[in-house]
């Protein structure tokens, strides 16, 4: 059983961010800061600068400071298990946010309260399904731009997409290389892969930043993204929605960083003694040419 949470006027809340080197993470941190005011939190936010070990040390220092509740987006599935265990031992209920930990070792409802977030595998799968549905040619030649090598969203978004798309034998993945979730690298890698595989007609990027980079690479090479090459990705950033509106991109599956309000709500329920499901699934929307214009104002 995870430790209970007493009902109080004000909570001392720990939020251990893993890194701040991309807009998504920054938006997520900001969402927690914004929620702190509306939800009456004293928020301690730390940043692990991309190191799982430091993230554990950060959680440690928050435990030492006596937080009431911990929100943790674990940088890695396994290395953050000690953080979850230590928080539990210190009587601090933990909610995992946006990524989870290894379910074989730490379990929701036991070591931590619940996981709030989307399913990366599912995100990849949904992109694949959209492609299968909307691709009109005979042969889909796919270039995949992966996230940071070895990171869990990269691994999951790859397996989700690859498994689903390869069930349809119209499609072939001719190259899959890392763009490190960054626009500049996404562009450079795309430029190169485009030279080696000029017949490519589908680009799947693990996040919108790389997708935008790929669009630039295509345009620089005189190709027409959206017309002769279909670009698809995940996240739902403002730039991606704009690209969809401009007809350069096909789809982006939402992976919203705005966890603050959800966190506040779930925490209050938990304090009130309500049952919390082990996985509070975030319903990821899917943005296409039909609805992009309606949502661009709320995007980050």
């Amino acid at each position: 059983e995870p430790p209970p949470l007493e009902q109080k006027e004000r909570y001392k809340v720990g939020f251990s961010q893993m890194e701040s080197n991309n807009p998504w993470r920054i938006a997520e941190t900001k969402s927690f800061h914004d929620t702190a005011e509306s939800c009456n939190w004293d928020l301690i936010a730390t940043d692990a600068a991309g190191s799982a070990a430091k993230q554990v040390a950060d959680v440690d220092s928050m435990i030492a400071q006596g937080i009431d509740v911990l929100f943790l987006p674990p940088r890695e599935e396994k290395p953050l298990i000690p953080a979850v265990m230590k928080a539990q031992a210190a009587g601090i209920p933990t909610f995992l946010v946006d990524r989870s930990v290894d379910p074989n070792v730490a379990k929701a409802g036991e070591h931590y309260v619940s996981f709030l977030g989307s399913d990366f595998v599912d995100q990849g799968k949904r992109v694949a399904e959209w492609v299968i549905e909307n691709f009109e040619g005979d042969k889909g030649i796919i270039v995949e731009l992966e996230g940071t090598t070895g990171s869990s969203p990269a691994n999951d978004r790859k397996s989700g997409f690859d498994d689903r798309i390869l069930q349809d034998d119209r499609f072939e993945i001719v190259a899959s290389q890392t763009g490190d979730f960054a626009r500049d690298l996404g562009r450079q890698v795309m430029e190169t892969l485009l030279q080696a595989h000029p017949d490519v007609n589908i680009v799947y990027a693990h996040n919108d930043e790389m997708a935008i980079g790929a669009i630039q690479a295509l345009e620089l090479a005189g190709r027409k993204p959206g017309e002769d090459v279909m670009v698809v990705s995940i996240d739902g950033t403002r730039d991606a929605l704009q690209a969809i509106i401009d007809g350069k991109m096909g789809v982006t599956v939402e992976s919203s960083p705005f966890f603050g309000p959800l966190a506040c709500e779930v925490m209050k329920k938990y304090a009130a003694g309500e049952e919390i499901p082990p996985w509070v699934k975030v319903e990821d929307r899917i943005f296409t040419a039909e609805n992009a214009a309606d949502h661009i104002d709320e995007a980050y």
Partner: protein
Amino acid sequence: MAGFDAKTLTKHGGLIALAVLLLINIAITPNFLQMQTLFVNISQVATIAIVAVGMTLVIATAGIDLSVGAVMAVAGALAPLIFLSDFAQAYPTLGLAASIIVPILVALLCGLFNGVLVAYLGVQPIIATLIFFISGRGIAQVLTNGNLQTFTHPGFSYLGTGKILGLPFQGWLVLLIAIVFWYIVNRTMYGRRILAVGGNENAARLTGTPVRRVKTGVYVISAGLSGIAGLIVVAINSASDAARIGNLMELDAIASAVVGGTLLMGGKAPIFGAVLGAVIIQLVKYTLLANGVADEVALIAKAGIIVLAVYVQQGRKE
């Protein structure tokens, strides 16, 4: 004659490595012999080459500059702030000029900071530039509040996407920078003094060389060139991401300089060697990527190639 062979190999190691790489690519990489391949490689190598030229000068004084990537981030973060400002909207030409000049000036100031630490306070270069390496990117993010800045600004984007005589603008820029610094190193007093300071600082001082000013100068130059590279990255991407611009650039630039024949203990500044080094590193990346080598294997391959290239370059000395 064995001595002759070894010597030629050492002397032209870089060119030989380049030739080998080209041959390998022609043989195995699909669609290698195309103009577009050339464009892609020129546009990608430009920033490394520009930074490597500055790095070469720093290394020639027996220093090192870890802060180049951070300086790129600062300059790259500043530019859009300026041309997206109200002022620049009102006066587009002035705004564009300011968005190029001001970031470069700020970069030069960063270099001045490094240079003063090294030359006047006697801080060891790796540590002096580590300070900015750690905090520079933070400053860039503070400037932009951590936000990604995206824009459409054809004028500014020319830096990254323009073409002159059919070749990318930044390629010409590299050529211009290399020629200017080659001239400075080989023909001017300042260049000679850089080499003297790196070769024997005491002797340089005793012959009237303003050692501290010379040293400060190379850090300023290195930072200025990094600033230019930062602007190019932002221009190509039509976006400025302070967290990412120039990430790991210091390693590429140092590797380029060394592969190009620069001695880490100072006293040599082969400018075109550094450009050649950058081209080799770029081509290695291209080869591995285009042939679908997995990222982790590519890392190992890169490691092996760097060791080999430097081994051939350094030759065997008694």
